[in-house]
């Protein structure tokens, strides 16, 4: 199909040098020059701009329609060549086609996970949109119907059977619901704060048991880990970053998830517990915090009479508080992680200073893994305990206990 190949390349480029045209077909430059010279009814040479080599002179298609007729006619005149030849050379095996839906589903899921590393809000929105495209296309693959994929609503997932054949295994309907919920939450987090109702609904989507024939448990673990990160991002105090969780927020979400996992004993129960915790958390976090202070590990909820405050505080910080500094625990918002307490003024000052020290250290961290953040926090907490031990030596013993507990969540044998 040598001549047809050159004519086709010319139709695509419209204006070209023979050297450029040769790259788009199987012929070499000399053959292309010869062919162009012989086809003066199809191509014209443009005025020479000072370049002398035959391969560098510019040519142009005279009439695209005439050229296309010539291509069609010459393709038909070549038995066994042209389109049939190409189609045969690039035929896609049936089993490979059947892998498309499974690949699109996994691509959506991995893209959603990758959002955790994307610093810009617009970038995360684009990625969430890509993931939704793949999820909708997956729905179009498995749900018979005539509507275009981009018109399919997530609610369509309810029409699916409990187990969906992807062509390369099965996935559950619940997994798709969870994927779609994560996509919506990712998009919402990139856009800023979201309504509590939305979060509760998303959490409910994630509470249902998952199960599939491929990466179920691993996927569920990653999904469940990502969810509290995003949830904290959207329900956390505003004015900090652009919806991308800062290191202190990642610490809190990691601890929240791992605590739930440890207490529940398995991923499914932990996800249920997590959903309950997040709903509670959504009601307990302040809308804003003052600039310049700690954001995630210490928050003032109310100013009370006599200089007292109602605060949220990172639970291990209470463990390293000298006994002389009084507080009254009001609620375990996230057991072992976040506590609401009523504090005396001096107590508030000390806790604010502790939280500031931990957060300052975390925001300078290069670590991305949750375990590393926990380890880094343990180091700072121990250092703070030593400074507090001048007032109360029992701080050291309580600090050791708190740090052992933290390290066990990081998977460090203690």
């Amino acid at each position, binding site marked *: 199909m040598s001549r047809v190949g050159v004519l086709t390349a010319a139709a695509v480029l419209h204006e070209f040098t023979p050297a450029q045209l040769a790259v788009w*077909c199987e012929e070499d430059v000399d053959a292309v020059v010869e062919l162009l010279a012989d086809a003066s009814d199809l191509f014209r040479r443009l005025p020479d701009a000072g370049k002398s080599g035959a391969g560098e002179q510019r040519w142009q298609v005279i009439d695209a329609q005439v050229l296309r007729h010539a291509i069609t006619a010459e393709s038909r005149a070549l038995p066994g060549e042209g389109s049939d030849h*190409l189609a045969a*050379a690039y035929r896609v095996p049936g089993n490979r086609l059947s892998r*498309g839906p499974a690949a*699109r589903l996994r691509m959506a899921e991995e*893209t959603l996970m990758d959002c955790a590393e994307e610093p810009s809000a*617009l970038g995360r*929105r*684009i990625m969430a949109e890509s993931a939704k495209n793949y999820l909708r296309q997956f729905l179009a693959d498995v749900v018979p119907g005539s509507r*275009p994929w981009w018109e399919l609503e997530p609610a369509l997932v309810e029409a699916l059977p409990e187990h969906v054949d992807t062509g390369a295994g099965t996935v559950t309907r619940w997994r798709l619901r969870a994927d779609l919920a994560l996509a919506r939450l990712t998009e919402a987090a990139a856009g800023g704060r979201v309504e509590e109702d939305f979060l509760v609904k998303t959490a409910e989507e994630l509470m249902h048991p998952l199960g599939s024939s491929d990466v179920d448990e691993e996927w569920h673990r990653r999904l469940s880990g990502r969810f509290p990160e995003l949830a904290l991002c959207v329900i956390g105090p505003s004015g900090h970053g652009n919806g991308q969780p800062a290191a202190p927020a990642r610490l809190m979400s990691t601890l929240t998830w791992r605590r739930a996992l440890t207490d529940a004993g398995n991923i499914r129960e932990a996800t249920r517990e997590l959903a309950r915790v997040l709903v509670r958390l959504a009601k307990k976090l302040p809308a804003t915090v003052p600039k310049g202070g700690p954001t995630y590990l210490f928050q003032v909820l109310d100013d009370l009479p006599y200089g007292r405050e109602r605060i949220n505080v990172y639970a291990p910080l209470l463990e390293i508080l000298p006994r002389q500094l009084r507080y009254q625990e009001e609620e375990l918002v996230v057991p072992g992680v976040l506590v609401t307490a009523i504090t005396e003024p001096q107590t508030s000052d000390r806790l604010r200073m502790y939280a500031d020290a931990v957060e300052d250290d975390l925001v300078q961290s290069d670590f991305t893994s949750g375990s590393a953040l926990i380890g880094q926090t343990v180091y700072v907490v121990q250092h703070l305990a030593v400074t507090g031990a001048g007032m109360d030596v029992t701080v050291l013993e309580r600090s050791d206990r708190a740090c052992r507990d933290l390290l066990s969540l990081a998977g460090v044998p203690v």
Partner: protein
Amino acid sequence: MTMPGSSPYGGLEPPMWRSLLAEAAVFHATRGVLGRLCDMAAHEDTVKVMLLNLGRAARRFSRQEDDDGAAVAAVVAAWAQDLSSALDDPELEEDTRRLLTETLHRLDQAACQDPFLPMLRAVESQARELYGEHWRPAALSLAHRRSHPRGADPAHDPYAVTAKTPWPPSPTQAQVELHIFADRFGPAAYAALPTLLTHECVCHVPARQDEAKNDSEFAEGFLDWVAYEYLRLWAMKLDPELGPTMRKHAERLKEILDGDITTRVGMARVCGHDAARELEGWFETEYDITLDESRKRVLRLAVELNVVDRPLRLKNNFVSQLRKPFPPYLDKALREWHEQAVTGEELLDRVEEAVS
């Protein structure tokens, strides 16, 4: 000129370099029969043993000799002796005898010359013309890897070689790296080298984007599909003798890589290849043009988008929408691009506006 006892590639110890050089010198000299050697080795023990012996000789003489030329000459002589001994067997099948005889004659052309860099230069000359002013000069580095890239059984996956182009490139050039598992460097891996180099030169060397990701459906899927097509077009120009074998092993390697959707790069390949085929089909039906022309339209758009300096995630998002029927705004934008009313850059603007 390489000094005795040294390697022109910093990532390779001299003995490893001499071993690869000696084997590659043999493969280059016999490239006209390399495809048949690969095929026959799959079911003919004599040929399989011959190729294993070649690898052993290369490793042995590369350690014994300090000089590249002496090592290559020793390997060629040892293998010629091996082939002659095999040909002495009166029970040798006739087709095997013909192939080994022809191989032996071609061994005379074996020379102590780096065959890797000329391969890159041949691919580069095509890619430079393709990308024009956007082309970024490419340098080659060679490194040894300690295992098969996919940990595979060499009988099913003989392509014990990978390539990459680290990101970001330096201001003056991109570095193309070939990573070869020398213990399994056989004729099939050699024949696949132009495919890998074409992928690097079409997909990565001239790319303008903010980051590189080996699981990008645009860079590793959509553009990869395009790179295979260019390899098919360029094969005979890169090397008329090796061309048909290049194409054959490009297809075999593609089959192997496409078979894996458990890895992230595998998923990206499937999604990107499917997207390219969807777009190809759309051009073909919407404009009533031949399959060849519709394919070349996809190629042109891919090349144009690759050099638009926009975030990779935006290009990925474009690929994620290439499923028929296309969203109305994209359908309209693609028609305008086809009619040359908008550029590739403006097409990506539309994609970004749709998300925003």
